[in-house]
């Protein structure tokens, strides 16, 4: 047991910190640090800057742009990135479909998709959830039927995050309705400009347009865009969702948000109750960060440690708790959420209510927190 970073790891940390703060435009980082919305172009620009430095997809296999780092180095990369206000590389590309294709894709699929996926030349969307298939994802109904070499897809996906920017969508579809529900699922990659694909916006409680419905009517998909084997989609989905769970505990970003809040809070920081809430949250975030480090140290062969459910569960709760504190500190100023830009209320305070509302999503997606409890009680505790 030893606390200090080794000299190599300390040097590593300094190096990535340097890249993050010099290669990603200040304007983009300020946008993140102040909790404002990023444009599509900013997300793309930032990921390309990282990719040019080999820092966009370090967890991929080395031959596809990954880095031969230790788990600790990956953790440092992730934390330093959030700390510097660098947007995390688009999860659909970097954490989801990239590792899936690297693991399950054909050589042709890898060559075709992995480089542009790392560089965000292709923007991927995740087409898993359906109106009647949420936590029980395996009950999905969007159907793909063989027609010659092609698949013809009909059905509806929903909650598709940033689908309005999507170039391609990786979907789970039912290719065999006769077998046990998990066994009839396959993964298809679909070009979103294909005729028959329609994206419809959903407005969320914060007023934002972040998710969409995606409809498929007789969409023709070439057979070489199926990943793995027909019927192998569920295995791939489990692999992908396991990676997702690890990625969704935004420890560094939440720490950063709390640090910023201490500054914006001004005189309110003299209130002993506010100080106590901040101190308590800081302590809980420390426990979470340390747990991330401890869990990372025990994960083998890249498979998520079952305790990563702990990170998802507590990470999202703390992310939400910080947003609640921000809202309470903003007080009446938070009513000006949708006021014009020249509102006399401060920008940070005006953003608190939408942010608070928006972050309720965190305990729903990525496997809801109830599903995480299920994983813990079954897989870890054997209940």
């Amino acid at each position, binding site marked *: *047991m*030893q*606390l*200090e*970073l*080794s000299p190599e*790891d300390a040097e590593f940390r300094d190096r990535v910190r340097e890249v993050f703060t010099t290669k990603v435009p200040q304007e983009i980082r300020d946008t993140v640090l102040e909790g404002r919305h990023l444009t599509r172009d900013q997300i793309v620009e930032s990921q390309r800057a990282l990719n040019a430095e080999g820092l966009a997809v370090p967890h991929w296999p080395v031959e596809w742009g990954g880095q031969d780092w230790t788990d*600790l180095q990956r953790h440092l990369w992730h934390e330093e990135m959030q*700390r510097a206000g660098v947007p995390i590389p688009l999860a659909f590309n970097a954490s989801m479909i990239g590792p899936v294709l690297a693991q399950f894709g054909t050589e042709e699929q890898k060559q075709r998709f992995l480089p542009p996926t790392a560089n965000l030349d292709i923007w991927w969307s995740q087409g898993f959830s359906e109106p009647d298939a949420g936590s029980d994802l395996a009950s999905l109904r969007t159907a793909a039927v063989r027609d010659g070499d092609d698949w013809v897809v009909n059905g509806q996906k929903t909650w598709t995050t940033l689908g309005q920017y999507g170039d391609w969508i990786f979907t789970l579809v039912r290719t065999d309705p006769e077998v046990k529900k998990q066994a009839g699922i396959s993964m298809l990659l679909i070009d979103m400009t294909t005729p028959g694909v329609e994206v419809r916006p959903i407005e969320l409680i914060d007023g934002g347009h972040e998710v969409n419905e995606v409809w498929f009517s007789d969409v023709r998909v070439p057979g070489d865009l199926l990943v793995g084997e027909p019927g192998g989609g569920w295995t791939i989905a489990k692999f992908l969702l396991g990676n997702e769970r690890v990625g969704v505990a935004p420890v560094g970003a939440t*720490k*950063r948000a709390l*640090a910023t809040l*201490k500054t914006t809070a001004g005189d309110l*920081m003299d209130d*002993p109750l506010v*100080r*106590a809430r*901040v*101190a*308590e949250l*800081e*302590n*809980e*975030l*420390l*426990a*979470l*960060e*340390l*747990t991330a*480090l*401890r869990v990372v*140290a025990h994960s083998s062969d890249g498979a998520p440690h079952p*305790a990563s459910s*702990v990170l998802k*569960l*507590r990470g999202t709760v703390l992310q939400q708790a910080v947003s609640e504190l921000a809202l309470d500190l903003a007080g009446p100023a938070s009513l000006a959420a949708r006021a014009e830009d020249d509102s006399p209320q401060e920008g940070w305070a005006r953003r608190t209510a939408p942010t608070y509302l928006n972050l309720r999503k965190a305990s729903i997606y990525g496997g809801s927190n*109830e599903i*995480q*409890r*299920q994983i*813990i*009680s*079954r897989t*870890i*505790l*054997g*209940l």
Partner: protein
Amino acid sequence: MDFTYDDEQQALREAVRGLLKDAYGDHEARRQAVATDDGFDRALWGRLAEMGVLGLPFSEDDGGVGAGPVEIGIVCQELGRVLAPEPYLASVVHAGGLVAAVGSREQKADLLGRLSAGEVQLAAADTSPGGRWASRADGVRASVDGDTWTLDGVADPVVGGATADVLVVTAALPGDGAGTGVFVVDAAAVTRTGYAAADLTRAASVTFEASAATPLGEPGRDLTDSIATISDLTRIMGANQALGVMQSQVRATTDYLKSRKQFGVTLNTFQALTFRAADMYVELELAHSMVDWATMTIAGGDREVVADAADRVGLATARAGRHIGQEAIQLHGGIGMTAEYAVGVGTAHLEVLDQWLGNAHHHLTRLSSRVTDHELVEAV
């Protein structure tokens, strides 16, 4: 940065666990031990001495083993697992720690050598009735006449005080603002009233009346900072002990949910219960990380870092202890309420540790006072 135990540490854990399993693997044995006059098992204390466990923190020059904080933490975790009533924290970690921190060479060699060998038991008297975790003494006052020091006042609770041979007492030095000194007092020469705490471990009320005392280290020197540091170290080791308790409680609770039947099925059929067990596990893992981290900070030797770590781990384990301790009883139902069953006694033990060493309120107050001194809390 490394959270894994090496082979020697692992071996130490297994050895201590084996010994404690023989002693208290059955909770009934613990019940019998706390029912004796001493409130613990002297034979076991002797075996801990033979194993070198009592001398772990002390240098070889002082008759100890010279092990590090991680090793001491391992012992405390194992003691916690079986709710061992032996006064290890009080005698070795706290009182022994004070002697090691402020005693002269001769005092250390004498007291710590005999403590390590199991020949004497120490207890730290640092709290006055109504006192709350202060390193500055106010209940006991020291007086000096020529070279002769005496103490007056009351210390309470003195954990392990009734069975101790030697008391290590913090006392206000003569003169305004002179600070606090640390004294050694022959326990047989003062009035002691022993009692049991809620978990049936023992403490005492000790009255000093012109009691002869020997200053530890240089006479008359203000030792407030050292006293605070040793309290911080003890807090961190207490958190290790609490971790052991909580680990046992989570295991006992999940085992119980799998075996206890109601409505014709085992209780783990009910998601309302398994989810609560999952939440206990979450608290346990987070507290575990804090305990390992706080223990590792000690090796760095920076007393402010250790003080901060003590507050952080104190808060974290106190919160986790409330959650886990209460849920462990609730999920057991009536059996969790019985003295016969370890789970509820563990909850009592967690409370005793926290109220003795520093509860959540105390640590949060201290953390709150420093919250604007830093931008972010650095883990590494």
